[in-house]
């Protein structure tokens, strides 16, 4: 593989800002940003030269079915609906229950889906419960008497001294 990396600015182009090694691949973010900026500016200038500059404001097209109520707008959970549907069985342990009464029965059919968020359960809810339980137990320390606090200090001191006496 490559030898010692030369310092910054020694890439093959004059505006390479990063160290360069011919055997490895490189990632030079400022150059990419520079190219994107140049491309955007060029696009802006050329399009504004060549095109009709007027813009008009009008109602949203929405394929001819405009419905401005907030209920039709996409929320975060609706944005995630295809992901839930695709990954529900695998990653979220989704379970469906269907209750279909026989024909002639007047009860409505029921369909329910239970989706479990494992990340929430393992990494947030469980530590949260542990922290709350632990802090409730430790809250006792707020209400001790002076003598008991002194006992705590004394015990700590003796333990530390014993450790120092035994281990150093």
């Amino acid at each position, binding site marked *: 593989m490559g030898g010692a990396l030369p310092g910054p600015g020694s*890439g*093959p*182009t*004059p505006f*390479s800002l990063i160290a*360069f090694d011919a*055997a*490895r*691949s*490189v*990632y*030079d973010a400022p*150059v*990419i940003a520079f*190219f*994107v900026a140049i*491309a*955007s500016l060029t*696009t*802006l200038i050329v*399009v504004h030269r*060549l*095109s*009709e500059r*007027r*813009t*008009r*404001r*009008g*109602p*949203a*097209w*929405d*394929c001819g079915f*405009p*419905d*401005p109520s907030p209920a*039709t*707008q*996409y929320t975060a959970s*609706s*944005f*995630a*609906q*295809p*992901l839930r*549907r*695709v990954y529900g069985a695998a990653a979220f342990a989704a379970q469906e229950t269907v209750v279909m009464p026989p024909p002639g029965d007047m009860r409505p059919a029921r369909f329910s889906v239970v989706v479990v968020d494992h990340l929430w359960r393992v990494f947030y809810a469980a530590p949260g419960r542990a922290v709350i339980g632990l802090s409730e137990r430790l809250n006792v320390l707020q209400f001790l008497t002076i003598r008991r606090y002194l006992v705590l200090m004394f015990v700590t001191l003796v333990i530390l001294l014993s450790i120092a006496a035994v281990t150093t």
Partner: protein
Amino acid sequence: MTRDLVVQFLAQGAQMTLVLLIAPLAVGVVRRVKARLMRRQGPPLLQAYLDLAKLLRKESVIAEGASWLFRSAPYLIFALTWVAAALVPSFASGLMFNWAADVVALVAVLGAARALLALAGMDVGTSFGGIGSSREMMIATLAEPAMMLIVVTLAIAAGTTRLAGVADFFIAEPFAVRVSLALSLISLVIVALAENARIPVDNPATHLELTMVHEAMVLEYSGRHLALIEAASHLKLALYLSLLICLFAPFGMAPATAGLSGWAIGLAAWIAKLLAGAVLLGVWEVSIAKMRVFRLPDFVGIAFVFGFIAILLAFLTRGVFA
């Protein structure tokens, strides 16, 4: 030294301009082939250019609730796609820009363009924009990991993730069929179909909103904004065709040190291969039907599985081309 630098600069600029100019032609070829195979006359080959010109001439109508994001997104999307297209070696490998980014950066730039498009689709607050954006993101979660696996396979084979380096490796190696490369070819074809919104993933010519993914996101655009987005999608198609060509059929591509004659040969070879790829795409689109949206995980999942197997095989057979 400076003259060399100027020549390099001009070559990179020429590559960017050329890919921009060729892309609508490739799309025209695809549409013409599809029409002819369906026994229709089909639009003229230059129709895409005419469409872009027409859109540029028209006034742009912007929805009342749209924000600055909606207005500025097309420019940024186009610029990002164009920069990504500058990264893929076309007629010559080893151009200037390729030292700044590798395949992973290419995927990231395209991902940024996709994110902007999804945001712009949701910006107006219509439900069709939401449909398009959410489905596009779902397809992205399936296609991008497969792309990463392909990148890893190529990196194992060529020893680098820099696209020009991979292209040079595949030019230099004898033309041998290796199973891992064949599997990653199939994987990349599926990923390219998913990313470019082609049948069976999405129908670029549909007028039915519930079958749209890409078209639903850009439903509210008109005038020059729509021209930019259409140009970006043409450019993305040309980008993926160039990627397939430079990785799996790179003969004729000029290496970094070739002179003008080498570049001319490379240019001719590249244009010919690009149009051949467009013809193949047209034939493919006619032969297969669009899938239901929620069957897509199975389809793109094939790409993921093949990519994974390709990595395993590449590891196993690494000693052969060491």
